[in-house]
């Protein structure tokens, strides 16, 4: 059964898929990685974005990527509100913030899931565009255009976010907040405002990521549960808060998933991300490119 061609095929698809995983994890890399918010509702927001894109595509025939771009301001505001709520109710009160926070975000995720089901039903939904359903032949390898689109957008998104965090004033402020919030306060800056802005950015990125999600494959309301594993695996493996690391970790996950998929079958796929996550947590909790030693 095993053949070199098949393996090569799996690796190529895996790299592309991995870049896509990177794009859907970038937001979490900011919110969980840099801000320490236990954002388990991140994948639920992602699926919500996919449904918003689906709605625009279905009713107004907007291109999915454009639709993703259109909803980013809304998601930015959503992020601002979500962080404010989280801060007022948990971080400000101090003790047990992380533990109650994770329960809180699970509640939010369930609410989003049900609202989607009530509005759109439990069926799978997909979008239409020229590049969906066609493939590019490279020798013996057949690469779907939808993966190529996801790959290109994901890479661009990662580069942009890395530049934003390293070159702009606000981006540096966000990284400063992640390093030492107290020091920032002593210098007269308001760390909460910066964190709120960062959370807004993290959620805004989900607009585009949601578009990619529904471009790559059809979505259903409970898809977020599978992505809890993938996104947290990528972010923890990357080392909290490293954008470049996020992309590398995502590619590792993508390749691992496709190889297992080709060799053992699809039924083992859901466990890959979680097994890698567990392995990383047990062996190297600071991740591959961790900010904490």
């Amino acid at each position: 059964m095993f053949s070199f061609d098949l393996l090569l095929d799996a690796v190529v698809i895996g790299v592309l898929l991995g870049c896509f995983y990177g794009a859907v994890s970038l937001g979490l890399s900011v919110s969980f990685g840099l801000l320490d918010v236990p954002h388990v509702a991140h994948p639920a927001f992602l699926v919500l974005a996919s449904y918003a894109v689906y709605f625009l595509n279905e009713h107004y025939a907007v291109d999915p990527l454009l639709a993703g771009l259109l909803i980013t301001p809304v998601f930015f505001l959503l992020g601002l509100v979500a962080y404010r709520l989280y801060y007022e109710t948990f971080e400000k009160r101090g003790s047990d913030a992380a533990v109650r926070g994770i329960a809180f975000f699970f509640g939010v995720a369930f609410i989003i899931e049900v609202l989607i089901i009530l509005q759109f039903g439990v069926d799978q939904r997909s979008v239409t565009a020229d590049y969906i359903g066609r493939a590019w032949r490279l020798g013996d390898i057949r690469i779907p255009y939808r993966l190529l689109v996801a790959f290109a957008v994901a890479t661009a998104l990662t580069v942009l976010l890395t530049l934003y965090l390293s070159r702009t004033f606000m981006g540096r402020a966000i990284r400063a907040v992640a390093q030492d919030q107290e020091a920032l306060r002593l210098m007269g800056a308001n760390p909460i405002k910066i964190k709120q802005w960062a959370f807004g950015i993290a959620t805004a990125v989900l607009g585009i990521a949601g578009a990619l999600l529904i471009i790559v494959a059809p979505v259903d309301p409970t898809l977020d549960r599978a992505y809890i594993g993938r996104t947290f695996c990528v972010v923890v493996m990357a080392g909290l808060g490293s954008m470049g690391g996020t992309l590398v970790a995502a590619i590792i996950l993508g390749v691992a998933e496709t190889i297992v998929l080709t060799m053992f079958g699809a039924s083992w796929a859901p466990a890959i991300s979680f097994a890698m996550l567990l392995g990383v947590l047990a062996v190297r909790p600071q991740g591959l490119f961790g900010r904490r030693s």
Partner: protein
Amino acid sequence: MTRNSIAFWTGATVFLVAVFVMTQVVGNQYPFFAGYVILQFIALAVAWSILGGYAGYVNFGTSAFFGVGVYAAVFLVKAFSAPLPLQILAGAAIGALMGFALGLLTLRMQGIFFSIATIALTIIIETTITNWRYVGGAAGIQIQRPAVTAPFDNYVQMLFFVQALLVVLAVAISRYIQNSWIGRGLQALRDDELAAECTGVPTLRLKLLACVISGALMCAVGAPTAMYLQYADPASAFNLNYSVTTLAMSLIGGTAHWSGPIIGAILLGTTQQLLTVTISSEINVLVLGLMLVLFVVGAPEGIIGLIRKLRDGRKEGEV
């Protein structure tokens, strides 16, 4: 025995007798179907809070323990046609082993990382069971109930009584732990693990103990489910809803006292049963989410906390 203990054991006996009388008198089957689910969640919530409440390690793996309990029973029934008590005992034994493994994890992970690791464990076990053909794989498996034994004339009524026994067992253990040195030690490590370790609290032993007891109980509670549903499939046995519902019940009731999870489970469990029947199962999940968010935001100490605050407020008013 102190007065408190006498009151507790009298209450437990009255409860069991009432449940038994109900199985003999009530003819309608529906109360047993609904009541079984509520009892199951009471037991799960009480078991969960031994680790999650007293020790403060938030376990999202309730569905892993529950599902393993279900599949332990499925395997025993299929391979040896084992009787129900054996299924429950085997479930408890496997749950204790899993709990021990979970306890070792706490050595390396705390806080949110521990929580994420427990979610990961759940999915990994679910995937393994999905790929295990013998117990039905992804498609699930049908199970035949054996003939019911006297004095019950219906299998569900018997399961209802068995689950009530498990509830009493779980509550008695939880109450014992809270009032003994184990509970005080767990509370110390919950407040500050390093300080507790430094002052001579055997934190690792306590954590392992809490994990083993909590895990064994959760697995035992899951075991009769196979007979209750006469069917099992990995996607529903390991459903994340069990984890979040159990956690929500404990938080809603309050984890500071052993009665908190019971109050939360009765409140949320009954509401959910009513909603499922009258409206739909989606609304039932929505209510779960809303109540979880509301309580975590509005009443972080749960109903127990609210009652205590109310009582303290009144005392201050009197002075």
